[in-house]
């Protein structure tokens, strides 16, 4: 008997694109429906989003400003997803990165150290902070038997509380603590941006570097292959000699470091201070991006860009159409739901047409 190939291997690329297109169409329809229900003109809203995202050079580069942390987080999440881990705690890891960075800057800003050194130290501290928070998730999972989803979720709450306490307590602005965050950093400790824009080429470079790093790690290294093996079958990977505990930790630490770097960049290159919503929800959004990109590095780049564009594009909706800017959230959520739904539908459809392959028959 010839070998039996699973349907999955045989499906054409065009069919896959067709399914994906169908889910995008449905998400768009759903969002339109929501807009109609609220009494807003859908076409005008979409036009405004486009206008808001690409209307000027400044806005277009703002997309990249949002893309940088989102991409960093997504890159990290691809490591943990590959290892079969649901690193929900990524949100807290961003926050801890931001906190660690702020701590270092605050401690060193009045010293004589040259600014570049302080900034590098601050970034490294951010990565360490995120990694440490992720390491806690790993410790809880491996030695405490706490599933990473619950451990991560719990630690997210702890991180939120921690950042609020710092901003309203020890790190409050002279006089009074406020939601506007800590005292801004001195100008020499801000990452330089392109003239007249908010985009820092350094930050962009780091995001690109992280994508390239994860791409190579997952595609061309034994590290990536072992992560994949663990993610697909932990037990068998262990029996085949993969040190599973070590690799679970490495995946979490890697993801935590990248999320921490994202938080670090938000502090040093975007807000120049610590603010309560420093993570901007990029952690959860990164999870959506990774899912929508089907856990592929290459696909996650445009998907993250698309999500960033939606976020930036909907900022002006409240002013122009009196719509809430969370419309982007509705679209992103709808998109992910419909893509997952279509995957399910497609699996059923294929099961009907090809029938399960008959092992050993």
């Amino acid at each position, binding site marked *: 008997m010839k070998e039996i190939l699973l349907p999955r291997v045989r499906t054409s690329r065009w069919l896959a694109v067709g399914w994906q297109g169908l889910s995008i169409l449905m998400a768009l329809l759903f969002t339109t429906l929501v807009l109609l229900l609220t009494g807003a003109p859908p076409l005008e809203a979409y036009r405004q989003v486009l206008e808001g995202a690409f209307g000027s050079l400044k806005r277009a580069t703002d997309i990249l400003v949002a893309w940088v942390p989102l991409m960093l987080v997504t890159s990290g999440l691809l490591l943990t997803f590959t290892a079969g881990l649901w690193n929900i705690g990524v949100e807290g890891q961003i926050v801890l990165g931001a906190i660690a960075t702020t701590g270092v800057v605050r401690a060193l800003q009045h010293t004589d150290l040259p600014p570049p050194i302080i900034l590098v130290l601050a970034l490294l501290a951010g990565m360490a902070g995120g990694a440490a928070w992720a390491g806690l998730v790993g410790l809880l999972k491996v030695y405490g038997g706490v599933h990473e989803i619950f451990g991560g979720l719990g630690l997210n709450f702890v991180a939120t509380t921690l950042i609020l306490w710092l901003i309203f307590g020890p790190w409050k602005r002279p006089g009074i603590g406020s939601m506007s965050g800590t005292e801004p950093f001195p100008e020499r400790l801000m990452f330089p941006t392109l003239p007249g824009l908010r985009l820092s080429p350094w930050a962009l470079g780091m995001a690109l570097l992280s994508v390239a790093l994860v791409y190579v790690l997952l595609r061309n290294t034994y590290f990536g292959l072992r992560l994949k*093996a663990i993610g697909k079958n932990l037990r068998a990977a262990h029996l085949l000699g993969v040190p599973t505990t070590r690799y679970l930790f490495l995946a979490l630490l890697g993801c935590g470091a990248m999320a921490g770097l994202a938080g670090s960049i938000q502090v040093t290159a975007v807000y120049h201070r610590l603010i309560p919503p420093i993570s901007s929800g990029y952690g959860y959004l990164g999870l959506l991006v990774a899912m929508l990109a089907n856990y592929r590095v290459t696909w996650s780049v445009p998907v993250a860009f698309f999500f960033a564009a939606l976020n930036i594009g909907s900022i002006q909706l409240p002013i122009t159409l009196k719509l809430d800017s969370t419309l982007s959230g509705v679209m992103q959520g709808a998109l992910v739901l419909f893509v997952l739904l279509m995957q399910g539908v497609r699996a059923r459809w294929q099961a009907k047409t090809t029938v399960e392959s008959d*092992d050993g*028959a």
Partner: protein
Amino acid sequence: MKVEMRHIYKSFGPVRALQDVSLTVQAGTIHGLLGENGAGKTTLMKILSGYLRPDRGEILLDGQAVHFRSPAEGLRHGIGMLHQDPMDFPALSVLDNFMMGHEGGLWLDRRGARRALKELADAFGFDLDPDARVDSLTVGERQQLELLRLLWRGVRVLILDEPTTGISAPQKVRLFATLRRLAEEGKAVIFVTHKLEEVEELCHRVTVLRQGRLAGEVIPPYSPARLIELMFGRPVPMPERERIPLGEPVLEVQDLVVGDHRLRLSRVRLTVRAGEIIGLAGMEGSGQQLLMRACAGLIRPWEGTIRVSGRDLTGKPYSAFLEAGVLYVPANRLEEGLIPGLTLTEHFQLVYPNGRHLIDWEQARAEAQRRIREFHIRGRPETPVEALSGGNQQRTLLALIRTPARLLLLEHPTRGLDVESSLWVWERLKERARQGTALMVVSSDLQELMQYCHRIVVFFSGRVSEPIDAEQLTLDRLGHMIAGRGW
């Protein structure tokens, strides 16, 4: 009920699983369906039971053409199939499983079902506790449960797909008695197997499939040579056990205590020497797996020592055993042995890395190609393992056993394989023994153990025999010992 399948065709993509197969089964007979792995037996039966739909051909029950869209529909017409792997709900009770799929109103009639289960179990001499959870049952008991469930549903045609895999010798005897009785009651029984002796013992008529086609139909008295010829197209020679000069002791187990309150091995002593093949015989779950896993470093013994090539590894982690050259090959291929979703190339790279951090995919593919050829795996380097047939998955597992190894621990290395594949597997294992590796093999196929192992250790609910020289052992005595007699 008389069953007729006429000119059945079935393809899976480019693979032609069945071509123009016809089968007629009379009521009141046990009809054997014989063939090697991949011959199309299971596919044909899944079509009859409504699990799969044929591409062409028709099915007639008592002369009436029927078309099933689901197994439930097949069951309504009186056709029930006992699948090779139990398709039950391990987390539920025996009674709940028994009632599963029963058609009735909104309310469950637990009391009625309990009574029916007891009556049926008594009638066939099965001992099933209605309140036990199914995952605490042996494979044989789960099979008995499924059998009763189908009978309660009123099946008139009973299909059994390789039912003797994984069940104990006494359970097999009871199963055969049950099947004979069901045939006497007028039911049609279809018995799918690749084991000749079962056909000889049980079947009134045998249909042989080969590579998706009808090879022939035979009635008793059966000639084994003729059946083998029909199955394979040519006679297969039987191998001899070979005497290899034994080397140094590789594995020394002393006063080992391992297990839990349900099953515990106490004070096991065993020495396995280089080049030796030791067989572990016993009913499933009699403690063989405990010993295997303790020797692999997967479970910690309470007491005693395990030495490998003189080094004390007691209580050391699995990785230390691996480093010492102890390799363990588990029975359930896709759960513990292989990684579904990964290709053959990726599997080989996991086990045989090139020593650097970067994978050279070009070289990896060539390497995989070489191993695929060497181990006769029917697949390509980029084939994911779950797309391979059972036999080819087993070959892949063997190809993943590192060399050199000091001690190989193998669980059911030939389970579900046809005669030819089994022969091939044992040739590889004997080769490893010749190279000075010590082997410990668990198998439920006593014939196989007798044939290839130098010494055999018998297990009976936690009791462990002294190793017995295979030449001083008869199949009969071994069978008795496994059932707990003649110790």
